[in-house]
């Protein structure tokens, strides 16, 4: 955090100055470790075992915050009798289908409840019988069975205790390489720092997400934080430290395949032709906040299709395209490499460096008809046809690449108005300082004018397929000779307005499902409240209280801490004076506090819904987690996740260890790409690739380097690609500090300088084995002011099933001394790099009962 989010880390230091204990868990000793109270080196890919160990410790030593857990979590809920845990099924949960490698949620549900709609994640259950043909789910939620004593063998609390029983300190030591004494120190420190007076926070970044079990890493932290009463309270939480200015905004208003703005799922092919009602039934919940779902989708359709969207035509919902499965980045690139795509837009991104398996990306780009790149300068993605390694080596000839490439110079943030949503869900407006020079234009300009041209091209069409683009509202005022669209006008549409008079709505509570309101993104509703751009507010911090609500605007409703109802006890009183944040004011008969209360404003803590209550009326006075269908924080996730209701330690796709906890080696629901150009190593113990590789970022560079590698100020500070190795590994492999090394996986081979350092430590794991980890920054590639081999060329296509994110934080490889690299790539060298094939057969998936049919490798068609 000190390296990649230095200015945010100032607040960690501030907390330390006030007495907080800082624990840093990282395979490397970094600048963060240097100022932390404890540094805990960990084997990459073993965090669930580590966090699970802490959960085990907290449960076994009764360190959990009992009043919080009883009131605000689903600890007492009884789970379906068909549920089987990984304890029963050798590392699997019940409901696994070995043919499709997917789970059904049928047995994970609450006893007697017909579907539990999650706050987020996968709401639809495509795989279930009658998918997309059902009634509204969760109608019996209020009748669910609970055991307030938490003793029922199928209550969530007992299931949790049983699930984590094997995550003992000894198991943690064997799996993570963390000595037992150090682990116990962490577990005790965290566990004791809980209760009315105390809270603790977790900060994480892509070190947790880029795994085949990445979502479950965060789930494990969520369970622990719920047990310790650290969600919704000041000083608590799980903070995602995101790497790009508006990466949070890019999921809220997504350019992602599976969601519409505001986390409304994209429609699916399983819907009937006239699908709005069914879509709402699939995604809405009978109880709690997602019962409002219809208002949000209808208001979105009104924002997009304007007067053409009427109640009679279901607001043109059926014009939206529908999904048939996963259309995420790696799926798309894989299909691109097989020649199935014609055109590709890349805006402000450099996937041949910033993603995984750059050679496979370039193979995809070579098979396109046309590519549009928008950036500040010619990145590797724009230059793939000219200076890529395979061109330099003569394996691919420029003249034979048929792809047309357009490069559009982009405007910078100082040349355009607009808002970022930063990592704390806060929208902040940046004002245009100067006009862009030459042909530089913003993406807003490009998209708006491309849309204008396409609307003109389709204007005379009578083909029904063109109706959506014809009906699309696209009238934004422009300014100046460049005809730059007005970003505030777009933000107004995002905020929402009443259709009759065009006035901004004050918030999402005012949205309607009858077509009388329009709103581009319901969770952002309120960002233009009273016709004022709330995101541009800049009241100096010294002129307001510590929550600083008048700086920028945080979604939802300018709320700075989500689920902050839990900062008060079940009766609505602050847990303690010290941790006072939001509370019930009995005189005013409403919730109040330093922040905008995350609750029904006038609903008293004593409120209990009448039997059969529906919608928001079903929210009990202590249902703090109003987005969940049961109002509770989920220790057990009955739906929403594709790989299990509890987190389970699985080894990475490629590991040095056999799974020490379960017979099943890898996440059984992971995504794999079985292609000749995407070879995998053996699941564990591959003699060709004995070391763990992990990737990370540097303070002085930014992701794929497009915003840093061309700058002399930054390039001078970090001029060259390198790898970090321990003294022990250096001795073993004859690596010299400052010298060269060649690093190899079955996907590719790179060379870089060697940094021999005590900051990397070999870890001792199961059986006294020593595990060496090699650290790799990944900012460099073949163009720019400073160049170097990209770590990306080493990484394969394999992904987490929930979010389709690649595993670039833990995989295996080899390192040799010297500059031996011939720069080979599996994509262009065919079998050469994979030889010799491993003679071991370490199964990733348990044979027998759970044997699964993973597609065998196939030879993809030759690129054109």
């Amino acid at each position, binding site marked *: 955090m000190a390296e990649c989010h230095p*200015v945010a880390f*100032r607040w960690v230091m501030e907390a330390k100055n006030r007495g907080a204990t800082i624990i840093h868990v990282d395979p490397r000793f970094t600048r963060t470790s240097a100022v932390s109270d404890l540094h805990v080196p960990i084997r990459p890919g073993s965090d669930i075992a580590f966090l699970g160990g802490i959960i085990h410790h907290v449960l076994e030593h009764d360190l959990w915050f009992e009043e919080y857990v009883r009131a605000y979590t689903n600890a007492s809920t009884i789970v379906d009798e068909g549920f089987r845990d990984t304890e029963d099924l050798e590392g699997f949960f019940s409901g696994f289908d070995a043919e499709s490698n997917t789970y059904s949620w049928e047995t994970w549900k609450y006893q007697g409840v017909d579907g539990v709609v999650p706050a987020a994640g996968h709401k639809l259950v495509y795989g279930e019988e009658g998918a997309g043909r059902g009634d509204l789910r969760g109608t019996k939620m209020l009748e669910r069975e609970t055991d307030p004593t938490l003793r029922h063998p199928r209550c969530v609390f007992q299931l949790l205790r049983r699930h984590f029983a094997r995550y003992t300190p000894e198991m943690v030591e064997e799996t993570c390489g963390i000595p037992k004494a150090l682990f116990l120190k962490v577990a005790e420190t965290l566990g004791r720092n809980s209760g009315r007076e105390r809270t603790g926070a977790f900060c994480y970044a892509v070190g947790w997400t880029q795994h085949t079990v990445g979502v479950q890493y965060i789930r494990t932290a969520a369970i622990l934080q719920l047990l310790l009463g650290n969600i919704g309270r000041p000083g608590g939480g799980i903070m995602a430290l*995101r790497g*790009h*200015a508006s*990466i949070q*905004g*890019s999921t809220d208003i*997504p*350019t*992602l395949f599976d969601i519409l703005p505001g986390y409304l799922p*994209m429609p699916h*092919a*399983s819907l009937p032709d006239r699908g709005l009602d069914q879509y709402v039934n699939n995604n809405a919940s009978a109880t709690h906040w997602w019962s409002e779902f219809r208002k949000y989708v209808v208001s979105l359709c009104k924002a*997009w299709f304007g007067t053409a969207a009427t109640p009679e035509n279901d607001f043109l919902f059926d014009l*939206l*395209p529908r999904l*048939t499965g996963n*259309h995420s980045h790696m799926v*798309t690139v894989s*299909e691109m490499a097989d020649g199935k795509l*014609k*055109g590709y837009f890349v*805006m*402000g*991104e450099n996937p041949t460096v910033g*993603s995984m398996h750059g050679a496979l990306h370039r193979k995809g780009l070579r098979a396109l008809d046309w590519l549009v790149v928008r950036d500040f*300068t*010619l990145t590797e993605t724009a230059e793939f046809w000219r200076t890529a390694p395979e061109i330099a080596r003569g394996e691919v000839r*420029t*003249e034979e690449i*048929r792809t047309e490439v*357009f490069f559009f*110079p982009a405007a*910078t*943030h*100082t040349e*355009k108005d607009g*808002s*970022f949503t*930063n*990592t704390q869900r806060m929208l902040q*407006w940046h004002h245009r*300082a100067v006009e862009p020079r030459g042909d530089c234009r*913003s993406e807003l300009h490009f998209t708006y004018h*491309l849309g204008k041209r396409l609307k003109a091209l*389709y204007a005379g069409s009578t083909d029904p397929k063109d109706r*959506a683009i014809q009906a*699309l509202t696209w009238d934004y005022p422009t300014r100046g000779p460049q005809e730059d669209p007005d970003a505030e006008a777009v933000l107004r549409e995002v905020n929402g307005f009443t259709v009759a008079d065009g006035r901004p709505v004050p918030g999402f509570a005012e949205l309607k499902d009858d077509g009388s309101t329009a709103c*581009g993104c319901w969770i952002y509703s309120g960002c233009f409240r009273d016709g004022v751009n709330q995101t541009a507010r800049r009241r*100096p*911090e010294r002129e307001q209280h510590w929550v600083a609500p008048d700086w*920028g605007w945080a979604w939802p409703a300018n709320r700075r801490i989500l689920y902050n109802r839990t900062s008060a006890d079940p009766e609505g009183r602050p847990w303690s004076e010290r941790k006072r944040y939001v509370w019930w004011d009995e005189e005013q008969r409403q919730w109040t506090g330093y922040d905008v209360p995350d609750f029904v404003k006038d609903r008293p803590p004593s409120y209990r819904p009448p039997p059969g209550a529906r919608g928001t009326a079903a929210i009990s006075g202590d249902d703090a987690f109003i987005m969940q269908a049961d109002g509770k924080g989920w220790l057990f996730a009955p739906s929403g996740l594709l790989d299990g209701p509890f987190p389970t330690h699985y080894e990475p796709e490629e590991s040095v260890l056999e799974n020490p906890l379960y017979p099943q080696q890898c996440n059984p629901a992971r995504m794999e790409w079985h292609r000749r150009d995407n070879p995998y190593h053996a699941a564990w113990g591959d003699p060709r690739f004995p070391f763990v590789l992990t990737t990370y970022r540097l303070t002085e*560079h*930014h*992701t794929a380097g497009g*915003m840093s590698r061309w*700058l002399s100020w*930054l390039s001078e*500070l970090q001029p060259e690609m390198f790898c970090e190795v321990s003294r022990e590994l250096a001795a073993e492999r004859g690596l010299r500090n400052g010298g060269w090394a060649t690093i190899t996986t079955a996907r590719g081979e790179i060379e870089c300088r060697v940094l021999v350092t005590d900051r990397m430590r070999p870890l001792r794991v199961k059986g006294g084995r020593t595990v060496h980890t090699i650290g790799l920054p990944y900012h460099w590639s073949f163009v720019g002011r400073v160049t170097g081999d990209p770590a990306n060329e080493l990484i394969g296509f394999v992904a987490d099933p929930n979010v389709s994110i690649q595993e670039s934080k833990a995989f295996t490889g080899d390192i040799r001394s010297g500059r031996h690299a011939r720069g080979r790539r599996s994509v262009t060298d065919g079998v050469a790099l994979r030889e010799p094939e491993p003679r071991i057969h370490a199964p990733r998936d348990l044979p027998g009962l759970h044997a699964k049919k993973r597609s065998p490798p196939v030879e993809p068609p030759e690129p054109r």
Partner: protein
Amino acid sequence: MPKLPVLSDWPVLRQLRRRDPSGLGSTAASPRTRSLAPRTASADRVARSICPYCAVGCGQLVYVKDEKIVDIEGDPDSPVSQGCLCPKGAATFQLVTGAHRLEQVLYRRPGGTSWEAIPLEQAMEMVAQRVKKARDETWQERVEDEGAEHHGDQVRRTLGIAHLGGATLDNEENYLLKKLFTALGVVQVENQARI
């Protein structure tokens, strides 16, 4: 010919007269030093901005003179950053004013070996035409592949075009992108957020 020193300019006298006997205060400054000011002081205006690098959201002040950016500093009013910027944030000035920035649209023909500069308007029209052609050729009203999981189901989309957008784009830009591509039936719309 240099001016002859006058007695009143004698340092000791000057220091005494200005009550700076040690000579470490204001008397140590030369006239040139006294005339210097930071380039932010003479800026015509200051635009309030946010750092474009990581997601912490540090406040930035963008100083403009003669319609050119002359400096970018941290915003002391920001409750997020209190005026601080990290090495990347502090390099924002070079990011936005550096010589690496291209100002022309470039085009590479199929099989071409070099870039060609083409007018912006022409390039926009060429891209629009290609989107239309690719979309029309790959349109899927329903899943037609026999044996496919969703055979016969209505999908109204194209799988012939894809988009990948950076997470440094503004919300308003992402909104228009998602809106336009969805209306065109493009479902393969993705972002750095996936990575």
